[in-house]
């Protein structure tokens, strides 16, 4: 097994709001290996962004990290002082945000913004830094970098802006790159280009990536492993193939089932009924997904399911995996996909 670069252990984060304490992340654990891409999927409010912002220690003032450890090569980031954290942020762990318009300073030329990211962490002269800016712009595919570096963010299109944000993020060759819905505001063509760019850069600078998205098509394209989050917890985690072709959690079934593919001809799309819980204190006992779950068991109302082991790499938090549980049949479309997958694997092997 490859070396673990980042490890998040039992992370819990809550926010104090006017209506009470909100438990946004409730005991999340995962690891990120060298050079791999882990995709985190889930609905808005499932805690995927909060988890990643905790790694960057970029949480709002009303947030508190109630428990957990975030180990980057063995160092607990949660124990660092703000000053120490500042030297980690941007250098060891960097982030690409969803909206490229708000993550760039509109009053600053883009060359200066990238330069800032470089000089903050590296002791190099202005001239050397400038040279590096041009090199980075070229790397992310901005043509005529010399002229473009003197322009302001509003002079670029959405896709180009995201390229600039990526250039800033990789300026110091971070060990971990967190991409929070980096392509959600872009159209398909742009999205494809940005994803290709990120994959290429990942290889070049040997970084590990956490990719947050709710687009399962994008997940299938980028992810080595996938974590599915619901109501502040990871409900299923595994290799991409395991999640797509052998999902075990009813929520994952719902997500995969709800997305139309180009060969969908059903008269109506499958939907997961209801909406996610608010996670306001007191968080109801039992499985948070139970009220929306057609496969819910009586035990779900009282006890939260632990993560059951499916394989060495695949875990799911549902009582359906308990040996005493009745056998549940996943939606037909998913079992069909699994059959196709097994067939194809057999053919490739033989």
């Amino acid at each position, binding site marked *: 097994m490859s070396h673990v670069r980042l490890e998040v252990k039992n992370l819990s984060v809550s926010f104090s709001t006017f209506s009470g304490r909100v438990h946004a992340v409730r005991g999340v654990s995962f690891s990120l290996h060298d050079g791999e891409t882990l995709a985190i999927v889930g*609905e*808005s409010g499932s805690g995927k962004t909060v988890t990643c912002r905790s790694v960057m220690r970029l949480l709002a003032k009303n947030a508190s990290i109630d428990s957990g450890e975030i180990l980057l090569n063995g160092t607990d980031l949660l124990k660092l002082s703000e000053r120490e954290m500042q030297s980690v942020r941007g250098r060891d762990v960097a982030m690409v945000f969803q909206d490229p318009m708000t993550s760039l300073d509109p009053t600053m030329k883009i060359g200066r913004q990238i330069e800032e990211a470089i000089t903050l962490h590296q002791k190099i002269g202005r001239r050397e830094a400038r040279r590096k800016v041009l090199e980075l712009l070229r790397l992310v595919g901005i043509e005529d970098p010399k002229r473009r570096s003197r322009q302001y963010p509003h002079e670029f*299109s*959405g896709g180009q802006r995201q390229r600039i944000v990526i250039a800033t993020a990789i300026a110091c060759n971070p060990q971990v790159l967190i991409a929070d819905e980096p392509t959600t505001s*872009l*159209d*398909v*063509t*742009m*999205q*494809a280009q940005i*994803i*290709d760019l990120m994959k290429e850069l990942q290889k070049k600078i040997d970084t590990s990536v956490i990719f947050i998205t*709710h*687009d*399962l*098509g*994008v*997940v*299938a*394209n980028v*992810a080595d492993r996938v974590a599915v989050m619901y109501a502040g917890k990871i409900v299923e985690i595994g290799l*991409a*193939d395991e999640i*797509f*072709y052998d999902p075990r959690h009813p929520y994952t079934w*719902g*997500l*995969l089932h*709800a*997305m*139309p*593919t*180009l060969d*969908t001809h059903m008269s*109506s*799309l*499958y*939907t*997961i009924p209801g*909406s996610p819980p608010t996670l306001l204190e007191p968080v109801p006992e039992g499985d948070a997904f139970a009220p929306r779950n057609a496969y819910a068991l009586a035990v779900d109302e009282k006890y939260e399911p632990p993560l059951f082991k499916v394989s060495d790499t695949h875990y799911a938090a549902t009582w359906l995996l308990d040996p005493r549980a009745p056998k549940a049949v996943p939606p037909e479309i998913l079992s069909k*996909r699994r059959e196709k*997958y097994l067939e*194809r694997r057999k053919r490739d092997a033989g």
Partner: protein
Amino acid sequence: MPDENILEVQDLVHVYQTGNRNVPAVNGVSFSIRKGETFGLVGESGCGKTTTGRMIVKLLKITLGTVRYHGKDITHIRGKKDLMRFRREVQMIFQDPYASLDPRKKVRDIIAEGIDAHHLAASRQERDERVAELLETVGLNRSFASRYPHEFSGGQRQRIGIARALALRPEFIVCDEPISALDVSIQAQVVNLLKKLQTEKNLTYLFIAHDLSMVKYISDRIGVMYRGRLVETGPADEVYEHPIHPYTKSLISAIPRPDPMSERVRRRVPYVPGPDRGISCRLREYARGHYVRCDEAGNF
């Protein structure tokens, strides 16, 4: 007549003036939509699809060309009476459910705005009853009428936007990227709702989006736009299964599919426009109802 065209758009042009430059965002677009069908308009950002939608509902000036609604030219509608009638029959659902609802108004007043403008309710009671009905139609609780938009999630807000569009019992609705700001599971709910309403109320949709798999799912026919021009149009299945124009091919090849195995082998075909960007080409019929703007060899 089942094949009656509800909307005909001919050589539509819109020019934006930016400083001293004129940008033709829409440059000679023609298509027609039959009653009861869904016409999907797809293309990358900046291709002119939203501009086209906005011209059709007369939210934007039509620089050149004509729009016919039920055979009647509405390009130069004059007189308040005709305009009011047109606005009652043609409604719009906007992309951003956060920006399109007035934050200072209660849901009741947002939904009833059209009812008030057209004096469709005789009494306060009738108005409230109609709002409650509309809320139920879109799957929301009647009691939500006295709340404010910020109290709702994105999917619920979009339902409010749909209720507002339905308030005047329109025939034709322009849906401008109604689901792109929503989560996947919520997208499916909204699309199902739109489909259900279409059957129940015999609605016609112009569905503008860049999410190609959803557009294919909801549309009977689609049009692909590129740089202000319609480059391909035809039955949804046909266009997706046998795309002819290189831009359409490129667009379809860029869609990531929720299937890691096929993703590993998927190759994106980049689109490189020809020297004259297809300006010399006209739309020609490739197969029945399937039109393409490029020549036999695929040059364009």
